[in-house]
């Protein structure tokens, strides 16, 4: 493929939206950390990560995504190995460990696992595109996924586990999961959720219980964060309190405002109008990824772009749902905007994959011509 052709199909709209969202994220982080000594400099770090991410996008675009197909097996093994290591070291430290420290950079293997699983599952489903869509087809993919998820679940990190399971389910869906299995799985999922609930960590159980049966007396208790998030959002009104002027944000009534609840902070300072614009941009990013999936040259590329779309879609909707108190607190961040180096670079890498797929797509003429 020639260079010119590569950049002809490069999705500048997607890149543009992602850059705008990241810049906005840095700006928003700058506002929410004002006056907090512990978080000082986070805006600058996020900006540096965004800059690195931009390079990652370009580099990833240049790499033919088919390369990842050949790396699927070793990548899978490395991810599982990393997760096992972190589980064992975590055990040794008597607590939850999610980070691996490599000198200056800390890596969250679970973040890595998300991307790795997109590629591994895309590879699996692309290879088995002609297989009969039977139980064996399903269970093999499930086994692959579960072998990774179980270590993440043991960290314990419920939210990432759910993300990966959702990714697996969505891949099944797009690869032609027969509807009868869908119904069976839904029923199974409900039963499993009920059966597994007692095995959750206590704080996870409490979060769920608190969400379903809110305790009206818990002023500073477990409902405090979501309650304050709702007040913060409502305080924004139509046009917002203005950048750096949201009292809930600036006076720190809103907690974890640089990560989980940055949506609420944004809603207070920029109001309904500003928030809808940002949410619209995120939806636009998802739509562009889906577009890349639909226009991809082959099933593997299509599934990668689709997987990234689902990843962004799921994280965005869960995070906003938490902020709006529609679903229980999970700890998933808002893509491109929430603070977090690992997560941001991972997302940029994912967008890079989509760009790589988009750049190597079949032209409209190719499809219609055939």
């Amino acid at each position, binding site marked *: 493929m020639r260079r010119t052709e590569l950049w002809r199909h490069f999705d500048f709209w997607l890149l543009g939206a992602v850059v705008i969202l990241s810049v906005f994220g840095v700006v928003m982080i700058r506002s929410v950390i004002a006056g907090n000594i512990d978080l000082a400099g986070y805006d600058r770090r996020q900006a540096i990560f965004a800059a690195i991410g931009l390079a990652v996008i370009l580099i990833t675009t240049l790499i033919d995504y088919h390369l990842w197909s050949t790396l699927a097996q070793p990548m899978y093994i490395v991810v599982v190995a990393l997760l096992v290591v972190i589980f064992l070291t975590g055990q040794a430290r008597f607590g939850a460990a999610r980070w691996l420290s490599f000198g200056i950079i800390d890596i969250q293997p679970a973040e890595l696992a998300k991307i790795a699983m997109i590629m591994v599952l895309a590879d699996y489903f692309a290879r088995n*595109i*002609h297989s009969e869509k039977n139980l064996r087809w399903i269970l093999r993919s499930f086994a692959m996924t579960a072998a990774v998820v179980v270590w993440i679940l043991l960290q314990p990190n419920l939210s990432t586990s759910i993300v990966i399971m959702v990714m697996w389910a*969505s891949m099944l*869906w*797009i690869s*032609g999961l027969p509807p009868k299995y869908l119904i069976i799985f839904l029923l199974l999922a409900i039963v499993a959720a009920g059966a597994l609930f007692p095995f959750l960590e206590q704080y996870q159980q409490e979060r769920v219980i608190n969400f379903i049966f809110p305790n009206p007396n818990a002023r500073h208790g477990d409902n405090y964060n979501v309650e*304050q998030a*709702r*007040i*913060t*959002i*409502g*305080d*924004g*009104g*139509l046009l917002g309190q203005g950048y750096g002027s949201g*009292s*809930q944000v600036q*006076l*720190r*009534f809103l907690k974890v405002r640089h990560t989980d609840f940055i949506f609420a902070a944004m*809603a*207070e300072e920029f*109001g*309904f109008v500003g*928030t*809808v614009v940002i*949410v619209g941009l995120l*939806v636009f990013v*998802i*739509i562009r990824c*889906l577009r890349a*999936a*639909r226009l991809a*040259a*082959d*099933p593997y590329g*299509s599934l990668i772009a689709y997987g990234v*779309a*689902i990843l962004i*879609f799921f994280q965005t*909707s869960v995070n*906003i*749902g938490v902020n*709006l108190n*529609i679903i229980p607190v999970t700890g998933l961040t808002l893509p491109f905007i929430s603070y977090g180096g690992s997560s941001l670079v991972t997302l940029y890498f994912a967008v890079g994959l989509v760009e790589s797929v988009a750049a190597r797509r079949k032209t409209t003429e190719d*499809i219609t011509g*055939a």
Partner: protein
Amino acid sequence: MKKLDFLNFNNEQWRYWVIYALLALIFSFYTYRLFVIQIVDGEIYQAQAEENRTSFQSLPTQRGNIYDRNGTILARNVPSYNVVITPAELPEDTGSVQEIYRQLSKVIKIPVSRGTINDDTVKNFTPCLNNLGITEIVYIQNSLAPFKPVRVACDIDEVTAKIIREKSSDWPGVDVEIEPVRDYPTGDLTAEVIGFLGPIPASQEQEYRDRGFLPGRDKVGFAGVELSMNNELEGSPGRRVVEVDVSGKVIRDLEPPVPAVPGKNIYLTIDTRLQAAAREALVSELNYWNNRLGKIISLQGVVIVMNPKTGEILAMVNYPSYENNRLARFIPAYYYNQLYNDPYKPLLNHAISGEYPPGSVFKLPTAIGVLNERVVTPDYVVEDPGEITVTERFYENDPGRPRRYVCHKAEGHGQVNFLKGIQESCNVYFMKVGGGFGTEVPGNGLGIWRIDEYAKALGYGSATGIELPGEAEGLIPDPTWKRLNIGENWSTGDTYISVQGQGFVLATPLQMAVATATIANDGVMMKPTLIKEIRDSDGQVVFKNSPVQVRDITKDKVINIFDENNIPTGEKKSVEPWTIELTQQGMRLVVTQGTASVQFNGFPIPAAGKTGTAEYCDDIARQNNLCDFGKWPAHAWFAGYAPFDDPEIVVVAFVYNGKEGSTFAAPIVRRTMEAYFCLKNIDAGEECGF
């Protein structure tokens, strides 16, 4: 082939559309929710956000001082220093914390660690009142409110406070708190009048909070002038509306702060010097008799000094009293219980709340009534053989049974007229003219209904309205009262007993002072008052009390006229001045030739008065088996005034279980009068003279 697969793959386009539909559905719903929260309910949340960041702070005010008439301080605020520790501000590593505790422990003499932490010690934890070490106190506070300072050592001396202040930069979390504490320089001398402070009662908490007072910081009057004048003394706390962050740190003022207004200063009519002298007179008299008789006769008494022309109370002495300084910081349970359970009730201001039979002093209303109703003329002579017998009848045709009444002088006073009746406090004279006796005093004499009229006209039976809480009304019984409360008809004997101020009759020492003052003041009754003036914190007089005349019984028609069946006719009359004048003469004779002549012998100022000895039976007497006939104990009273011609003071002395008004109470009154005139001379720049 490959191309075909690819088409196959992408041909299930509807699966994409499901994803698009999900996307549209979820984000439409989110946009709707966002719209509801931000636009529809926006105002609710904006109000909540406003509430979050807005904090109302109450700025402490200063309670007003209380002074006596000469400007002597009776109640004030003094700084008290407490060592406080804020657990959250202590260093993070335990080593440094332990080092701070060790050094602090040396200064404040509280061990680093003492006592144990368990449910009981945590539940009963009271700062300033525990036996725990520093570590334990901080541990408890850290579990309750780590950001709030807890008092570790209370009421430390100023030097120690300064040492800790200087060290506080080295000892993060440790500080010295300055707490204003009420101080009563005159202590138990004026405790019943001044009272004391206590915490804001739970029942009134909201009301006080609305006005900016904080339970735990601000206190309210619990007794005495501190209670009755609370509204003037308390001042009004200032108010700040501030923006706070989530940790409660003040960011800025949202509104201009309203400064606190200090309470007003109260100047009482009390003269502390006279108060001390009157108390000394009372206490030394009690000690004298207890020592002389070799047993405890009495431990309780009251002295009141009042200006009859203005109603000003110059002294109001209660004994035994209590030390209100011990209640200043907090009210210690053991001390309060001790006072509460004391049979002599030292917490009560007996001058206004104690109801006692007034004894023979109560003959004075009868005396005025007898003349004013023309039962007898002043010269009419009645025979006192020392003992009389009347037939006790409870109803009209009751055959009755004979009952014996005695004079305090066994052989009797012989031929007694009006003046001699008062002078010798002749029971038989007053029984006969008050209740009637055969043909000597026909009918029922003055009769109980009319006796009551004159007693009430002099102020008995109703509260005087002095500016003190808990004033009692006393009791002036009449036949209706007896039927309702005892279930028995009124008998002739009841009148005989009542005339002597015994039986059912009850009066407070203050009522007796007011009644005596009314007679001394030629029938003009002044409202008794403790308040001279009220000044604001700048010293400007905001209220100057002027004498209030309650009534002039020689002009105001206050006496109900009864028909022959003792039914009020609805008409009223006043008291003729000459009856009061004669009564005054009788009282003058009491101190010159009568019952108190020995005690007033050689007193240079012409005085007048009336003795009273009132048999009683109460809980204390009952415990000592004294409530049998003939064994009854008696209170001693003396009500006097001086100078006779132009009275300046009325003095009432009451000695609980004092046996005899003349011997026990009269000397107290004389010494108090001496003190008054001595002080008057000194104030005029002359020699004391006594």
